[in-house]
């Protein structure tokens, strides 16, 4: 993620540089922002229901997980992926190592780890649990027990 003079961009899974706009900006100019391939950066305070009707016009959705104890991003991801069926990339940004599996199961598809975790064994935390007890957006590789 690059934050350069207020323009925030991420490089998508496919290698494209996607510029992110806020939820408010998106709502005001859906058609032109969609036409220019913009993504949306969702903060924990944002009301994601505002995006529901234009979801599939969004090139990429970034969810901010910066606050370790702020769990709103997991519900936002679950709504966007599971309930409304968004099929594009959902990027977790400012993410924490210990929360990776929670995030991925909630519907986040790619993530940028915070710098402090560079060099850690990510697999321990993306695949720490092999058994799960509840339905979720993504239980791949897990034995479901519910």
């Amino acid at each position, binding site marked *: 993620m690059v934050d350069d003079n207020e323009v925030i961009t991420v490089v998508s899974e496919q290698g494209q540089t996607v510029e992110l706009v806020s939820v408010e900006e998106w709502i005001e100019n859906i058609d032109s922002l969609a036409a220019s391939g913009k993504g949306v950066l969702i903060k924990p305070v944002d009301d994601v229901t505002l995006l529901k009707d234009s979801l599939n016009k969004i090139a990429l959705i970034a969810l901010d997980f910066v606050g*370790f*104890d*702020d*769990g*709103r991003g*997991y*519900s*936002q991801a*679950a709504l966007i992926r599971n*309930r409304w069926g968004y099929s594009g990339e959902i990027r977790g940004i400012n993410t*924490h190592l*210990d*929360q990776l*599996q*929670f*995030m991925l*199961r*909630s519907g986040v598809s790619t993530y940028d780890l915070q710098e402090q975790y560079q060099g*850690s064994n990510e697999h*321990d*935390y993306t695949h*720490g*649990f*092999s*058994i*799960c*007890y*509840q*339905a*979720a*957006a993504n239980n791949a590789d897990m*034995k479901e*027990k*519910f």
Partner: protein
Amino acid sequence: MYQYNADDTAFLVERVDQFEKQLNRHLAGDLDAAKFRSLRLRNGLYMELHAHMLRVAIPYGILNTEQLRALADVADKYDRGFGHFTTRQNIQYNWIELPEIANLLRDLSAVGLHAIQTSGKAMRNITADPFSGLTKDEVEDARPYCELIRRWFNIHPEFSWLPGKFKIAINGAKLDETALQIHDLGLNIVYNEANELGFAVYVGGGLGAAPMVAPEITPFVAAEDIISYLESVLRVYNLKGRRDNLKRLRIKFMVREHGAVEFGRMVDEDWQQTKNNPELKLNMDELAKLKKDFALPIEPVDLAGFTDTVDFNYSIWKKNNVRAHKLSGYSIVNISLTQLGTAPGDATSEQMRMLADLADKYSNSELRTTKRQNLVFPYVRQNQVFELWQELAKNSLASPHQGTLAHVVACPGGDYCDLAKAVSIPIAQQVQQRFDDMDKLYDIGPININISGCENSCAHHHISDIGLLGLKKNEQEFYQITLAGETLHETAIGRKLGRSIAGAEVVDAIEDIVNIYLDSREEGENFVDVFKRIGITPFKEKVYG
């Protein structure tokens, strides 16, 4: 009795492995204190200045004797030889060394015990009726539902980082032993008009500085829909609960701000989107299997002609501690761990092993824990109760005080707890000394006294007949008295008697209150009945007059 299978045990081990890695990263300086705090609390670990406390879950209060022996072994191997049974049916160890935690938890996982989500801002262990599956007038045995809901909230991907802690109680009896309306979420098992089983849902209860009785947010959710409904409650709370004000994190504040009707509407709006999702339906096959696992492990016995031993102390103890069982020939026996001079709920490893031996012999190897910090033997043959009583008496665990006013529930308070404003245990001891005449205690009957050392209300003083809350004024210890809190028939927070009372005078005040009760009592009335009839004024006049 229900036991975990290989997958469940593997899950517990994965959890310990991950926590051990986190602990090692923290000790190596790679995981800061704030994040580690959030993670360790979810594993039941509190770090205090001089010692570390670990809270181990006893899911819905059921233990087998193998588990109780494992808890005794942990007390010896990793602590100072004792554990503390809590008012939420769990057990705590107070002197744990950090590097030992993972081994301790591995030992416990071998018998299906763990510390998952026993603290922190997550869904906590479920409180249940210790008499589930044992009494005649039960609506439905809550245990299979407790177990399915317990599984569901383990490491929930969406709801593991909530605004505040989230305590759940599930009741299946007509008389509510769980105090479900003081929980963040209470589920009461009911049948609707079509005779289908479901849950009335209460949200937003809690004690502490702003006690609140949870309002009902829906009178009926069908059993098969309960998971999707709970998800909607949690989603609304997770997205819209307050995170800005540290004193307003619990869901009760959200319910209060929006009102129960509006909160219920928000939940319903979300639920309409998910209630038909087949993945969120309760697994009825699994439920049927659990019902079998939890079925009574004993057959009725015919004790025609049996007459019990007559003995003064035994009879008093029996009146207060032995309950009717739904199965003929059996009784339910309550065992108090509260001894004069010890902290309520404390048990030594020797006591735990001795109780395990007795439960093997007299109770089909099963025990229950209760919110009054007692243990229950669920399956005792009526013709063995006297024998069991003798064994308990030999081990000082059959004081006839049990179930009387002298059985005070007190939090650790000023003697043990850093947060305390006043002592609890010494006041409990003074009450026991003041009321030491057995005949008088017997006459007074079962009045509850609960003492909390600060507003955190660990001893649940708000829902007691006589509640004491420790306060500090000008460096002196005072107690705020509340009267006639209750949860059994309906839930009511105790009413404040008046200005707080100095520690030296508080036992006199309790005696005054008891005397007003005795003078005013009419045939068959308990403390709350009398209070409702005569009001608070006579109590006030006597204490402050």
